[in-house]
């Protein structure tokens, strides 16, 4: 029996313990409430989230947020307790699933894009990240998966892939689609007996345009593409092959009423294809309007090569290849024209390729040589200078003029290196001439567009001069007029720097390009060389005589020395003398000669009397000799 005092103490103690327990419980409930409030806030965020969140134990789904319902189309009760495969899908890429599995086995995080399916069976692409959740003691019992529906992005990407049939810069079909269009046109051609024309075209001198800066090049290409598309018929396809090369498919052509003539490839193929010619002329016209660019207006021409199904080939590759061969021929023939394919062209194309390979080795094998052609002052018969002209000593074909290989040098960019070689060789042989006692006052070297456009151009020239032993390098650079007109500010700046090195600047082939004397006034030029085309027509075309006379007068007013190129007859020389041209160059004096032969020629020439010497003294009072 417990005594009452003990009993009382015990009741007091238990009451006190109860009150303490209640106080502890109350504070714990407050704690719990706070925790719950935070949890509710987070749960609210989870529920509002567009991103799906799945919590799994082992591989059973324990929790999903509403986004998962929206993404998968399954309701919560259809997912809870089920295998997570229901969401991840069984037709996902096997490799992705394996990667995922491996990461999870290693208790690491994993990311994958999987192909799954919604409840309604539609394709669902999900981007998911799975992270293990470790318990307090580091045991992984749950995984949190966040997933988003990337089906739209995926669809967009697929659309882009489909769109890869189109060139992004110009919006034209690309080569893939072109091949397909040709294929279809050929199928129709075979069925209906119609012809299909394939034109391959390349913008002339596009390298020079692109040298103004890639954005300008791109702009010009885009404009060119628009104009090409305008020029063709509705049934034709214009496509961009690569760079500045385009192709046009002209399906459903007739034989021009003369199938036999086409089939037997009579020379006059042009008149057999009036439809093709019509299209090409329109395209040429469309291109002709100068394109405005931030730097300058650019005039476009192009060279076309044409092949016609079925005569020039029965399949896409052959037809495209043959059209390309014809285009190269068109370029060789001076650009801005079109050529139909002929069997010889394949041969030429093969030749061209072997030419390219050989040219790449020509420098190291020392196969280039310089020939020299003198310039003579009309009034005195004095040799004023020589022009160095490059020749290629081809191991099989012998000595080749630049017309045979210059185009390839330019297209391959080899011209830069060969041009530098030319300057170095000319400077060296100039000093040999000095030793031979046959020193002409100046030696002229031709410059190509690519050389001038290079940023290191001035440095290259300076380097050549440094290497030559002479204080006066005696070098002139001849630059074609069209080349000078490109980016006139930059060109003028470079030329002035060159001039400061003691180098003279001559304008070559004057009259064939822009012929803008006002531009000329802005440039630091010393010599003007009138193109041979004007000289050869001098005696026969009165207009040309007037032009030459005007050029000479204007050049003199700008204090330039005038040289007539391509002088072949004494009659031409006499006329030029009368027009007060300063110097002549051409076969009348001599063809370009190798170094040793030039030395002999120069000796003989100096010993021969000059027919115009007397006339010079008669005109001496009025002749304006420009200072050099």
């Amino acid at each position, binding site marked *: 029996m417990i005594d009452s005092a003990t009993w009382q103490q015990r009741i007091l103690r*238990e009451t*006190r*313990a109860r009150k303490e327990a209640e106080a502890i419980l109350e504070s714990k409930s407050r704690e719990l409430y706070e925790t719950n409030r935070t949890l509710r806030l987070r749960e609210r965020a989870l529920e509002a989230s567009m991103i799906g969140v799945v919590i799994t134990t082992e591989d059973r789904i324990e929790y999903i947020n509403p986004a998962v319902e929206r993404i998968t189309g399954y309701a919560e009760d259809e997912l809870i307790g089920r295998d997570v495969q229901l969401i991840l899908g069984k037709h996902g890429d096997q490799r992705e699933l394996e990667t995922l599995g491996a990461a999870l086995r290693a208790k690491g995080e994993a990311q994958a894009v999987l192909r799954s399916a919604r409840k309604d069976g539609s394709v669902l692409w999900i981007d998911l990240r799975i992270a293990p959740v470790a318990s307090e003691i580091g045991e992984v019992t749950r995984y949190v998966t966040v997933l988003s529906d990337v089906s739209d992005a995926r669809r967009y990407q697929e659309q882009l892939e489909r769109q890869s049939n189109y060139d992004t810069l110009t919006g034209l079909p690309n080569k893939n689609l072109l091949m397909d269009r040709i294929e279809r046109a050929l199928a129709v051609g075979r069925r209906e007996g119609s012809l299909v024309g394939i034109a391959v075209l390349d913008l002339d001198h596009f390298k020079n345009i692109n040298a103004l800066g890639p954005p300008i090049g791109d702009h010009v290409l885009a404009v060119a593409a628009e104009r090409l598309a305008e020029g063709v018929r509705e049934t034709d396809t214009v496509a961009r092959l690569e760079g500045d090369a385009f192709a046009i498919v002209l399906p459903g052509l007739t034989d021009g009423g003369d199938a036999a003539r086409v089939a037997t490839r009579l020379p006059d193929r042009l008149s057999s294809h009036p439809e093709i010619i019509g299209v090409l002329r329109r395209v040429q016209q469309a291109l002709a309007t100068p394109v405005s660019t931030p730097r300058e207006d650019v005039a476009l021409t192009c060279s076309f090569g044409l092949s016609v199904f079925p005569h020039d080939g029965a399949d896409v590759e052959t037809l495209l290849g043959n059209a390309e061969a014809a285009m190269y021929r068109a370029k060789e023939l001076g650009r801005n024209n079109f050529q139909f394919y002929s069997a010889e062209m394949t041969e030429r194309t093969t030749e061209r390729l072997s030419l390219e390979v050989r040219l790449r080795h020509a420098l190291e094998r020392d196969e280039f040589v310089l020939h020299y052609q003198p310039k003579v002052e009309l009034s005195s018969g004095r040799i004023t200078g020589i022009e160095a002209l490059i020749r290629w000593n081809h191991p099989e074909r012998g000595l080749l003029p630049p017309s045979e290989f210059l185009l390839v040098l330019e297209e391959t960019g080899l011209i830069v290196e060969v041009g530098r070689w030319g300057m170095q060789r000319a400077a060296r042989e100039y000093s040999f001439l000095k030793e031979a006692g046959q020193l002409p006052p100046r030696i002229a070297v031709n410059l190509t567009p690519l050389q001038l456009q290079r940023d290191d151009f001035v440095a290259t020239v300076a380097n050549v001069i440094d290497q030559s032993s002479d204080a006066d390098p005696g070098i002139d650079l001849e630059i074609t007029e069209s080349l000078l007109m490109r980016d006139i500010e930059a060109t003028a700046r470079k030329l002035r720097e060159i001039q400061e090195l003691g180098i003279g600047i001559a304008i070559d082939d004057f009259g064939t390009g822009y012929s803008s004397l006002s531009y000329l006034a802005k440039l630091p030029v010393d010599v003007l060389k009138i193109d041979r085309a004007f000289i050869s027509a001098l005696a026969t075309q009165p207009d040309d005589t007037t032009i030459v006379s005007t050029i000479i007068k204007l050049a003199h007013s700008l204090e330039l020395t005038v040289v007539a190129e391509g002088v072949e007859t004494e009659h031409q020389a006499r006329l030029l003398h009368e027009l007060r041209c300063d110097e002549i160059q051409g076969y009348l004096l001599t063809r370009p000669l190798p170094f040793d032969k030039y030395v002999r020629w120069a000796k003989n020439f100096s010993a021969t009397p000059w027919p115009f010497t007397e006339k010079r003294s008669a005109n001496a009072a009025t002749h304006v000799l420009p200072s050099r």
Partner: protein
Amino acid sequence: MKGVVFVEFLEMVEAKFSPEMLEEIIEEAQLPNGGAYTSVGTYDHREIYRLVTALSGAAQLPIAQLLRDFGAHLFPRLVASHQEIVRSKTTSALDFLLGIERHVHAEVRKLYPDAELPSIGARMHGPRKLIVEYSSTRALADLAHGLLFGCVAYFGEAITIERRDLDGEANAHTLFVLTRADGWIR
């Protein structure tokens, strides 16, 4: 120290001695709360010493023995109120003790983040021998000893317990070697 230990201790004193003895030692121990313990509270561990010391004086029994007896009494009581902690697949005392840090203490920490638990290192030494290393600033090796008795009794196994105090009388660092009798193949 968790209130449950005090509550169990008071109940044990009342049952094994008498209600009067309980009130006597509570008064003798001069506890801050007058012995009004609740199992959800947390109290200064030194109070259990005061209680045991008071009991020792009143019952004329050594403190160490009282703590051991209390430990043996406490073990099945704790298991009874926390069945979820003793995992169903645990069928032997040695298994249970091997997993004590990993399972039991981990669960205790979940329930009572503020619990200050002793460090119990357990490792097998051969197939029949388990070494339990007790280490605690509370210096309650005797209580741990008693809990081990309780554990062995709970699983009903023939296991001997040897004790090696590593710090003399301090009771803060002790090794217990539990050896299972022959005939048990692990």
